[in-house]
């Protein structure tokens, strides 16, 4: 501590995970767009956003329990459950649709709340709790939709899976999307706006509440958080509840995107596993205490952008999973480079 370090440098050092996730994503994504015949255009961006958003939401859902030092193996299942619920409810009059959406989010929240209660009052490890409740969520999903089907309001579907101009056109806003002031932003995908809104309206403020910070505190040192008089139990329940909300938003979007519900178990577990990968790629420590949901969004984008590139480059079809696996392995092993720099082996254990 001979010379005081500049604040920005400290901030950067504390966010290397996030920074490298953004860099990695940008590299892959630029590559994709440069080689895409219609690169850097609205349709491509719209398509990419639509494809990524459900995973991004589920990755955010995973982040919060992870920050707390737990793991939520039910996020994919809750997403699937809400997807099935939405395929029943998000249709009809605007009022019915609104009610449907609120119910879906409430269902996710309620499920997460239940997870939190089991963890807090039952004192069962999050990973096991959610392994079990994930099965229950899939059961409910199958019960709601024994076969794929259902319907979601078509306008909503179209409006949210296209650019803002289509959104405005569908709902007759801003002169049907023709207003002059609207043009500079009309090209932005609605899904992307939705994602950013969720981050800005839910995640960012949440992070700055006492409960939000308690989640970090619990992940960092639970005993210390308790001794410091923080509302540990409430924060844990809140963490799972919010996780449920994000998972529900993912499921809701999936329903809107596909205009149907599907209680697909392999898909649910794929989302859960990908959410963990996204969280790690986004720079959040699986031990808890540091990281952010924004990082996980970029982690999810990285996972998606890898497969985007398969559609551009000629990789033999039966080699694709291998290439995807190798890239993932390489990406997660990058964290291992840190080990080379560690000169005091005791630091490896924290």
């Amino acid at each position, binding site marked *: 501590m001979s010379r005081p370090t500049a*604040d920005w440098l*400290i901030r950067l050092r504390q966010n290397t995970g996030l920074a490298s996730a953004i860099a990695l994503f940008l590299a892959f994504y630029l590559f994709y767009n440069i080689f895409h015949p219609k690169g850097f255009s609205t349709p491509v961006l719209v398509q990419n956003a639509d494809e990524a958003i459900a995973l991004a939401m589920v990755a955010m859902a995973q982040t919060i329990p992870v920050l707390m030092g737990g793991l939520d193996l039910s996020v994919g299942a809750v997403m699937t459950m809400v997807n099935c619920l939405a395929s029943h409810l998000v249709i009809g009059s605007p009022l019915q649709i609104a009610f449907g959406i609120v119910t879906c989010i409430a269902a996710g929240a309620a499920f997460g709340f239940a997870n939190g209660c089991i963890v807090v009052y039952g004192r069962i490890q999050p990973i096991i709790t959610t392994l079990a409740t994930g099965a229950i969520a899939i059961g409910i999903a199958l019960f709601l939709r024994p076969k794929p089907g259902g319907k979601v309001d078509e306008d909503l579907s179209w409006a949210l899976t296209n650019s803002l101009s289509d959104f405005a056109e569908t709902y007759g806003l801003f002169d049907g999307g023709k207003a002059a002031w609207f043009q500079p932003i009309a090209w932005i995908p609605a899904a992307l706006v939705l994602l950013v809104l969720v981050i800005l309206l839910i995640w960012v403020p949440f992070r700055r509440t006492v409960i939000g*910070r308690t989640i*970090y505190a619990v992940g*960092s040192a639970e005993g210390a958080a308790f*001794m410091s008089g923080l509302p540990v139990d409430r924060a844990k329940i809140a963490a799972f509840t919010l996780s449920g909300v994000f998972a529900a938003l993912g499921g809701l979007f999936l329903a809107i995107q596909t205009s149907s519900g599907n209680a697909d178990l392999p898909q649910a577990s794929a989302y859960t596993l990908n959410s963990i990968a996204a969280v790690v790629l986004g720079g959040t420590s699986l031990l808890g205490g*540091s990281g952010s949901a924004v990082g996980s969004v970029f982690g999810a984008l990285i996972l998606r952008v890898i497969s985007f590139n398969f559609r551009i480059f000629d990789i033999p079809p039966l080699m694709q999973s291998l290439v995807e696996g190798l890239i993932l392995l390489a990406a997660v092993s990058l964290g291992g480079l840190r080990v080379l720099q560690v*000169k005091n082996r005791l630091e490896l254990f924290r």
Partner: protein
Amino acid sequence: MREIDQAMIDRDARPLLELSQTSKRYGGVRALEGVDFACSAGSIHAILGENGAGKSTLIKIVSGVVQPDSGSMRLDGQDVRFSNPAAANAAGVVCVFQELSLMPDLSVADNISIAGPPTRMGLIDARAQRRRAEELLASIGCEDVNPLLRVRDLPLSRRQMVEIAKALGKRPRLLILDEATSALTNADVTVIYEVLKRLREDGLSILYISHRMHEIEALADRASVFRNGRHIETFPMGARSHGEIVELMIGREISAQYPTRVTRPRPAPLLEVRKLSWENRLRDVDLSLGMGEIVGLGGLDGQGQKELLLALFGVLKGVSGDMLIDGKPALPSSPVDAKGPGRRIALIPEDRKTEGLMLPMSIAENLCSASLDALSSGPFIDPGKQDVAVAEAIRQLQIKIGSPADPVATLSGGNQQKVVIAKWLMTKPRIILLNDPTRGIDVGTKQEIYGLLRVLADAGAAILFYSTDYDELIGCCDRVAVMYDGAIRVELEGDAITEQALIASALNIDTASTPALEHAS
């Protein structure tokens, strides 16, 4: 005894905090038994007692961490009961716990304002929070700590200062410090003394727990002694002699704190260190250690002492320079290497809870963990050999236990520390490295450990002993190497090991120009 206390309380100002007939059991253990206790505003009140006497339990009850089984508590004459630390904080009772209350991944600013951060429109105001942290840190002389830093990245002594800043930020009426200064540097301790005295002037009541007698003598107005979960006596400081206090604490008389030192000719070196360097933290360290010698490592905290011990034990990567045992190169590349037959080095690590013990595992398993190779035939552990060795270790160090199969977590801190030491003695080491082994250990146990070190040395071991406690270095060591900024600045020997000399060289005051210091007394 009760009448005396009552009389004293009546004489003094009305007590701020009063406990009566408070008891607490953990399973079958009586941690506190019918305790009456009071402390008044505007005073610093020391709580003394050996390990397991019930001090922590008392303050955990007062600060809402645990609930008493019976008894009542009054704050300012009002009956209170705190169901959690937050409730206690709200009532102005704030505790600095020895460990467990900073979040390493959060920033200093976050930590300081963790429970009641300044908010704007319901959200935490990061800027205001940072200003607050800066002010509080400045008030305890820690302007050099950037509040943006993560606590994880601070050395232990800074962390304790942050912890104190955090407590002060809660504007306590009753401030409790449970061994809160055990890792502080002398300079910090001086600042803290000033702060505490100022707070006393402001009318706060301070409960101060420490195993360092000189701190208590320097600070406290009044002291209460606990033993075996009972409140033994409360008296004004100065009313009792040092010896009397110790006797109250351990229920017997201690003849001499330190074993008598005999001056002997310097033995031939067993371990030699030449130009050992590592990462700017160790600079050309030269040191030698002879059979039967206890060499102390002194200096301010964080001058490379820990790194030196870790380097000698094979924990650090990229160490340059030589380490010789019996004149042969012997720098180990791992602890496995270090304890192996060619070297037989042992390290008593800094933090017994995270580095020394597997807390949930049994006492026996912990004791055997460093010497499994010797206790097994082929890949199989020999239960017979294990039991014998465990029994022998427990006897030798007089570890107070129920059964060797109990989790080591159930032992008091002092006994846990003995387990760590015993575990290494079971490997029959020739070279023993100790990293502040008596931190948070009561006087009685300390004395046993000092005695033990001397016995080991006499039996031929070479001992390198880092301590933050000057008394200890003076009392125990044949020689003391004082480190400053990664290098050994001075080696003091025999009668030259004095408090002044230690302090002067620790602060890197040129000893050549002040020879008087080195040879004082």
